[in-house]
């Protein structure tokens, strides 16, 4: 006889009445503000400068009177400047990429680790993983939060964890086959790479035991999900992770696959207009801002994630009462305003990818020679295109121009350049932006 696996990991919070949740959020927000003011000089200073009295908070809406916390604030606090507990209370340290001043160090107390494990277990259960699953974690183990975050949650759930880590794809496939992996945890692109490797090795994906893929760590699209599901014969769910805030476990899709449930008992969500920083209309797209509600070692107040998403207002049929986020497709990091139109480099990237059919390397240059903005995209193209007939080169350029104009709503000039002529910034991916306008 088989028993139905539980639909929720912590139903008492995942399915909590909204009113009860609001009370819990208020209590935890007030406690968090009291703690950070007492223990973190950065917040004390930023509250004082904003003329904000944490004792005057009466509702989660009052949070809006507080200044935002920016990524550079976290960098400036390197390594431990924003910790709210002494280092001896910290049992784990993780960090984001970069070294020295560009890195951010996150600390976790024993309670933080326990909470994190439970959060990740929630996301795994929501994605259909049970204690009977064999979970292959292909994230990089180390300072990065992804692998350890998922690992703890999967162990907490009682699943069998394969901590294989990243790389060595053929070995990954072999182990996936031999160990009869049923749940894959990876980035969407690595999931596709695995599928490709399988077929190169002459193995059919449907001969594997794989049935779930929990994906995260990269910009998302429904097309990407479909490709992973088709090629690996799995149900794929999207997960949201942000190391500074916790790691994976902040939000994840349930099997309805229509938005990511936010662990609202732990994180307060705001969506703001990235330019005015005012709250957007409910359901509209804006930048995700997160406040931690129970973190002990590394609490964050109004942290600007630089990621663009919107909230799904309707309740989910799965029974969870939390709000859902639309998967993050673009980041605001390099938000450009060209002729008054918001443009994200990732949008340009998507257009180039669809026209070129490969991963593009490109650069965006914005200038203002007279009073008008002029925007140009420099695209690296293969030699075959580059040395093609002038006419065909021009056609290709025109096609790109048209697509960019129709997708972005603003005209870009397109220049084709030879491979490896554009500078690549380490760890940043393609899409360098040079804004040469004088401000």
């Amino acid at each position: 006889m088989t028993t139905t696996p539980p639909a929720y990991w912590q139903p008492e919070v995942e399915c909590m009445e909204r009113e009860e949740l609001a009370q819990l959020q208020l209590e935890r927000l007030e406690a968090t503000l009291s703690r950070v003011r007492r223990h973190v000089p950065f917040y004390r200073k930023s509250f004082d400068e904003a003329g904000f009295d944490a004792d005057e908070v009466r509702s989660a809406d009052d949070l809006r009177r507080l200044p935002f916390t920016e990524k550079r604030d976290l960098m400036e606090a390197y390594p431990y400047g924003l910790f709210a507990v002494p280092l001896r209370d910290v049992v784990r340290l993780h960090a984001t990429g970069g070294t020295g001043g560009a890195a951010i160090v996150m600390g976790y107390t024993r309670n933080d680790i326990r909470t994190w494990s439970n959060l990740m277990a929630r996301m795994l259960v929501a994605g259909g993983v049970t204690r009977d699953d064999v979970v292959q974690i292909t994230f990089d183990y180390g300072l990065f939060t992804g692998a350890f975050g998922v690992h703890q949650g999967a162990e907490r759930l009682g699943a069998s964890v394969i901590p294989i880590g990243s790389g060595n794809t053929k070995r990954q496939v072999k182990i996936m086959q031999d160990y009869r992996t049923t749940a894959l945890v990876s980035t969407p692109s690595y999931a596709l790479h695995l599928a490709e490797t399988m077929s190169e090795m002459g193995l059919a994906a449907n001969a594997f035991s794989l049935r779930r893929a929990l994906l995260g760590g990269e910009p998302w699209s429904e097309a990407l999900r479909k490709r992973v599901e088709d090629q690996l014969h799995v149900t794929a769910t999207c997960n949201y992770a942000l190391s500074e805030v916790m790691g994976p476990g902040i939000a994840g899709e349930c099997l309805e696959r229509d938005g990511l449930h936010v662990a609202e008992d732990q994180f307060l969500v705001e969506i703001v207009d990235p330019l005015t920083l005012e709250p957007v209309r409910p359901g509209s797209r804006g930048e995700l801002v997160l406040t931690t509600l129970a973190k002990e070692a590394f609490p964050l107040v109004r942290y600007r994630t630089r990621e663009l998403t919107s909230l799904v207002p309707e309740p989910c049929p799965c029974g969870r009462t939390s709000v859902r986020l639309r998967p993050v497709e673009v980041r605001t990091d390099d938000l450009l305003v060209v002729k008054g139109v918001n443009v994200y480099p990732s949008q340009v990237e998507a257009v180039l990818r669809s026209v070129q059919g490969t991963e593009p390397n490109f650069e965006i240059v914005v200038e203002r020679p007279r009073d008008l903005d002029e925007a140009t995209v420099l695209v690296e193209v293969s030699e075959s295109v580059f040395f093609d007939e002038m006419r065909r080169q021009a056609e290709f350029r025109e096609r790109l121009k048209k697509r960019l104009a129709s997708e972005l709503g603003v005209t870009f000039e397109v220049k084709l350049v030879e491979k490896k002529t554009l500078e690549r910034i380490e760890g940043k991916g393609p899409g360098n932006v040079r804004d040469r306008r004088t401000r």
Partner: protein
Amino acid sequence: MLRIRNLDVAYGPVAVLRRVSLHVNPGEVVAIVGANGAGKTTLLNTVTGLVRARAGEIALRGRDVSRLPTEETVALGCSLVPEGRQVFASMSVRDNLLMGAHVQLRRGRRDEVRADLERVLGLFPVLRARERQLAGTLSGGEQQMLAMGRALMARPALLMLDEPSMGLAPLVMKDILATVSRIAAEGCTVLLVEQNARSALKIADRGYVLETGRIVLEGTSEELLANRDVQRAYLGRDVDPESEART
């Protein structure tokens, strides 16, 4: 059961509680821990209406009680066992218990009161043995039990206990807290204020840490017991990680 939002209480110009928010779900045992002077007693006295809040909401079973006189809050099902017992020393144990039933008696429910008296004496066998004795002659632990029994006579849905273990020998204290657990198991919701954080958290489902009038932590008892700040400040030990790993 109880929901408090942004409670501000001041004695004259001195703020005692600052925007305190907390809740107690039906059937829960919730502990409020904190040092002397943190505002724990003031909090309970404000819920019962003995002290008036300057601002904030107190909802008991969905009803706003922040402006109600104490006797009406009691009639709504909230009883307080005050700090230091405060039994009527010159009255018998039995009469002390009946004093707790005045709301019921006023409603003319003599039969129910008789049944309640039986139930309370059953819960505290030591009180049955001393039913006719003057309350002032009881030991500290017995007086604490009497104070609790008296509160239960009002048939509270929410029982609030202010430092029930104060001044008691460790064994007696253990006994008292075990009784609190038993009362909770019978379906009575409990809000417990204690300086003895470890004992309180051991019998509680959740807890809040109150520091100089502000709540600085909320969590399950397990979480609070594992919190190093709580351990340092209220559990009377500076944690030795090695001894902790062994436990």
